[in-house]
């Protein structure tokens, strides 16, 4: 059971690192999604700041969850974040159906749809599993292990950032040229 919980914790950390890094590679694109959820007409710098803040937050929580697993409060924070994902997906499905969610920056072309709400719920479910108690011994890391995890997390963040940059911003599909 403990291994299952640790797997859930690791998966969520990876998801957050990838999502945060990918969004950081393309904050302007994610800012357009942020704009969908701001009830007032916000200036572009504010939208960009929110987009970058959200991305950095995801990345920081993911990195911390992976490299400092002993802080159990992070599990609750991750669960709260995943619940926020469910809320955003549901709101997006209700009010902005079919628009790009840019949840993973340019890495994914997912849109606000029912499947997206389901995916978010599954992620929240995994986060709930990660909330389960794990013996302190299972979360103790020696210096070598911590360095290894930091290196792996850094590599993962770099890979996600680079992949998102290569794929470019996930903009809305434009009308295609059709045969006459």
């Amino acid at each position, binding site marked *: 059971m*403990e*291994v299952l919980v*640790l*797997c859930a914790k*690791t*998966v969520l*950390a*990876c998801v957050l690192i*990838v999502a945060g890094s990918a969004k950081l590679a*393309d904050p*302007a*694109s994610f800012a*357009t999604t942020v704009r969908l959820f701001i009830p007032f007409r916000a200036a*572009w710098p504010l939208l*960009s700041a929110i987009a970058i803040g959200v991305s950095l937050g995801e990345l920081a929580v993911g990195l911390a969850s*992976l490299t400092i*697993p002993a802080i159990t409060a992070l599990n609750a924070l991750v669960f709260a974040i995943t619940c926020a994902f469910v809320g955003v997906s549901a709101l997006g499905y209700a009010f902005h159906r079919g628009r790009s969610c840019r949840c993973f920056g*340019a*890495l994914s072309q997912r849109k606000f749809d029912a499947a997206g709400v389901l995916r978010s719920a599954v992620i929240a479910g995994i986060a709930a599993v990660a909330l389960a108690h794990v*013996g302190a*011994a*299972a*979360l*103790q*890391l020696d210096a070598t*292990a911590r360095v*290894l*995890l930091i290196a*792996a*997390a850094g*590599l*993962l963040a770099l*890979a*996600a950032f*680079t*992949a998102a*940059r*290569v*794929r*470019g*911003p*996930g*903009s*809305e*599909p*434009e*009308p*295609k*040229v*059709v*045969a*006459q």
Partner: protein
Amino acid sequence: MLLASSFVVVALVFCMATVLALFGVTHVSMSGAEAIERDGLAPGIHAPVWSLVDSTSKAVHSPPRTGLQLIMFTDHSLKAFPSVVDGLREVMARERLEIVVLTRRRNELAEPVLRLLGLDGIPVLTGSPSLYAAYNVRVTPFAIFVDSAGRVRASSLVNYDWQVTKLLQLADLPLESENLAPRGRFWRRTAGAGV
């Protein structure tokens, strides 16, 4: 201790698997027809600013001072695309449209061949691989329309005349506000008009 080691192993395995998955996804996205559809720049993006001199020592600027500018990314190989040449001839008559041919590198054959094809009056400019990269253009012939504000209005690979004229129609459409990105950085990708 065993569980602690398990956590490290599981975490490392997940990280490496995710890195490999990212590599695979990126590799797939960079190859094939789907990738070519994403070449060019998305409408609303600020296009690179440049000034180049043609064979008559006349300076050509991008963005144009007025109207639209059609930048054709091609060289003498355009002779293999007679339909595109027809399309260019068709839009040449359009007012307030400046057409320029931008080659990837110096090509002695480019201008004579293009003149032979009847594309007189179109400046042939020697660009560079980095300029092509700035426009996110890998394959030719590729067409990008830029307005006088320096924003991309339409971009796509073109193989037929109707594609050139259709792109011109798309270029005339007003830009959606959502596509207007702030000036300051260049995005490599377009959701562009796949042809």
